[in-house]
């Protein structure tokens, strides 16, 4: 549905995206993942035909990104905004028309969505008069009111209040159930774990890892130990050949590296603290990200 292949984009001397390739399929949620400045937004803008790639191409439903494919996409940018002085209804109608709906079609779907979000009363109000949460709802409606086959959200949960976060999650899952292609970007790994079927990990403009999330995880094996304990946990710092993620004074997520074994860690733990829980699991996405970035860096310095 969204086919990104060998995409390059630079601004002046800065290379924002380097040879990025991935595919997002219908009925699935695709997560673009990576720290700020990794090239996620630039990639999304190229998918939306806001920017043109220097090299490579974006295909939407097998059509190269352009005015035609823009109609198929609903896009909610990270920096969200509406015309403050325009009335809610008029504003939504404007966006609907820009996406190719007729005035009457537009009016019909706007009423449906406003009702769905319990926002019908706002139709004649100026956006500037609405609360932040209310205008966020209007923003969702603006994104999907033309019933696009593809929905793209850039950092959708940033700045949302908990109610709207839940609402957006529900809407995204509904869209997925309807067989739409959903792509969103985030720098918060736990959101991806909860929602995404497929991911692409971005680092410094490159896709360092892409594919089915559960396959990726299992390919890393059960090389992580979750340890819950009571007592003095300082022995954990002394363990060699591990990487410790997500540490608190009663919990540690320990990634086992070469030269270390889970059983050895268990033995040490029993000697030092009261072990409440010891579990061997697949690595978290944070861990996957760190180890992938490290290994590509290693490759880079080796060659």
């Amino acid at each position, binding site marked *: 549905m969204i086919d990104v292949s060998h995409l390059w984009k630079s*601004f*002046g001397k800065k290379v924002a995206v380097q040879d990025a390739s991935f595919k997002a399929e219908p009925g699935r949620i695709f997560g673009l993942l990576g720290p700020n400045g990794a090239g996620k937004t630039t990639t999304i*803008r190229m998918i*939306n*035909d*806001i*920017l*043109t790639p*220097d090299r490579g191409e974006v295909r939407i439903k097998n059509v190269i990104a352009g*005015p035609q494919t*823009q109609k198929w*996409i609903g*896009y*909610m*940018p990270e*920096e*969200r*905004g*509406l*015309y*403050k*002085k*325009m009335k809610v209804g*008029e504003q939504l109608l*404007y*966006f609907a*028309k*820009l*996406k190719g709906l007729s005035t009457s079609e537009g009016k019909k779907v706007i009423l449906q969505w406003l009702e769905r979000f319990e926002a019908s009363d706002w139709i004649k109000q100026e956006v500037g008069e609405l609360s932040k949460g209310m205008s966020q709802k209007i923003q969702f409606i*603006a994104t999907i009111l033309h019933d696009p086959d593809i929905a793209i959200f850039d950092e959708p949960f940033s700045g949302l209040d908990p109610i709207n976060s839940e609402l957006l999650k529900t809407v995204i899952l509904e869209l997925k159930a309807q067989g739409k292609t959903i792509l969103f970007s985030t720098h918060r790994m736990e959101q991806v774990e909860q929602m995404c079927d497929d991911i692409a990990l971005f680092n410094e403009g490159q896709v360092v890892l892409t594919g089915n999330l559960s396959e990726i995880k299992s390919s890393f094996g059960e090389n992580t130990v979750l340890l819950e304990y009571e007592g003095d946990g300082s022995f954990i710092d002394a363990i060699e050949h591990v990487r410790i993620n997500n540490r608190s004074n009663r919990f540690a997520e320990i990634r086992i590296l070469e030269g270390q074994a889970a059983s050895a860690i268990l033995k040490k733990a029993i000697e030092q603290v009261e072990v409440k829980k010891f579990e061997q699991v697949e690595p978290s996405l944070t861990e996957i990200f760190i180890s992938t970035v490290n290994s590509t860096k290693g490759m880079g310095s080796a060659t």
Partner: protein
Amino acid sequence: MNFNKVRIVLEREFFFRVKTKMFWISTLLVPFGFALLIGGSIAIQLWPQGNEEVLAIIDETGVLSESLMAEDENRYLNYQGKTIDEGKQDVQSGTIDGLLVLPNSILEGEGDAELIYKGSGGLSLLGSVRGDVRSVVREKRLAQAAITDEIRDLFDSRVGFTSTKLNEEGITEEDNTAFYSAIGFILGLIIFVALTSYGTIILKGVVEEKTNRIIEIIASSIKPIELLVGKILGISAVAIVQFGLWAVLFTGISAATTPIVAFVMAQQEGSAEQMTSREDVVASATNGEEVELSQALEAATNPSPTTELPFQIPEIPVSLVLYFFLFFILGYLLYSSLFAAIGSTTDATSDSQQLMMPVFIPIFMAYMFNVQIMQNPSTTFATVVSMIPLFTPINMITRVAISEVPVWQIGVSVVLMIGSIYGVLLISARIYRIGILQSGGKVGFKDLAKWLRQSN
């Protein structure tokens, strides 16, 4: 470019602005403000130029004070017998406004008449006293020199001078150069104001879309050039509607107020006649136009809607109105894309000041050239300047109003303008499409040069 999308943007820009209260307030207030301005300046012109200052004369010659008092009995007062010091005291205490000392030697052409006053009255007082003294002294000296009446008549006689314009068909017409010069300058001024104000509207609109972060949603639906063109056309539609309404309102207001003005002016003339010199008042009221006094008096005694002004307003040719709209629209199109490009480079209006200067400079320059062009509309300077696209909208309309501009010059200037609108639009669009997505950081001219080369 997808013109359907351009139309959607155009409609939004147009209806959004036309629906605001500000649009209607400014549309309604401007003509009334203008009418007040015009009415006010006519009223000031007609206001009796009262000789409110009282001047006492100490006349050492003994022969001049009488003639001066005959010039203006309300102003001059004879202080015969008083000393200069006593007179000065009276000036100090304010019993009189000034003391005019005429030394004996003045009749020999040597001494100076001296006015001692507190400084109120200004230039017009000084001017009129100087005139009065000069004519009285000259009169006396001519009499002393025993000049014959014949020679004096020679000096007094006026040399008649009228100007007649010969138009293309060889038909002579009355020359109303003064009137058309004023019209030409006003039309240039209107375009000047319109370019800056509608240009600023465009700029603010672009900045708003950037600061409110709407631009990215819009850019995911249409091309920047479509947004740019839709915006420019939408606001030009606003401008046309506004000017249309103004034209209607002006016609209405002037139709309604003409009888009133005529009545007031005729009243003025009626009373002026009883005063001293009616010619002066009439002349100052009408700027030397031909006066049909009887008509005005008739109007005064019989005010009816059909009353006409006591002087003739030369006709404004339809072609001039059409040229005005042509140059206004072309000028707007040229400048608005520049303003849009600048707006796209900034996040806040205050940031854009530095970049706005280069756009305002040519507009102001054209305005300053106009002061020259109004007086000499056919010089090489005027011709060249009015054909430079950035100056054409303001300078050409002034020339067209005042003089017969050869058709080829208008043609060339229009072609040059259309060409540069196209060129500027292309350049602006390149800046715009990159600028609108840029956020944070000041943009300088170096960046602009870089953007022109960069693909988006």
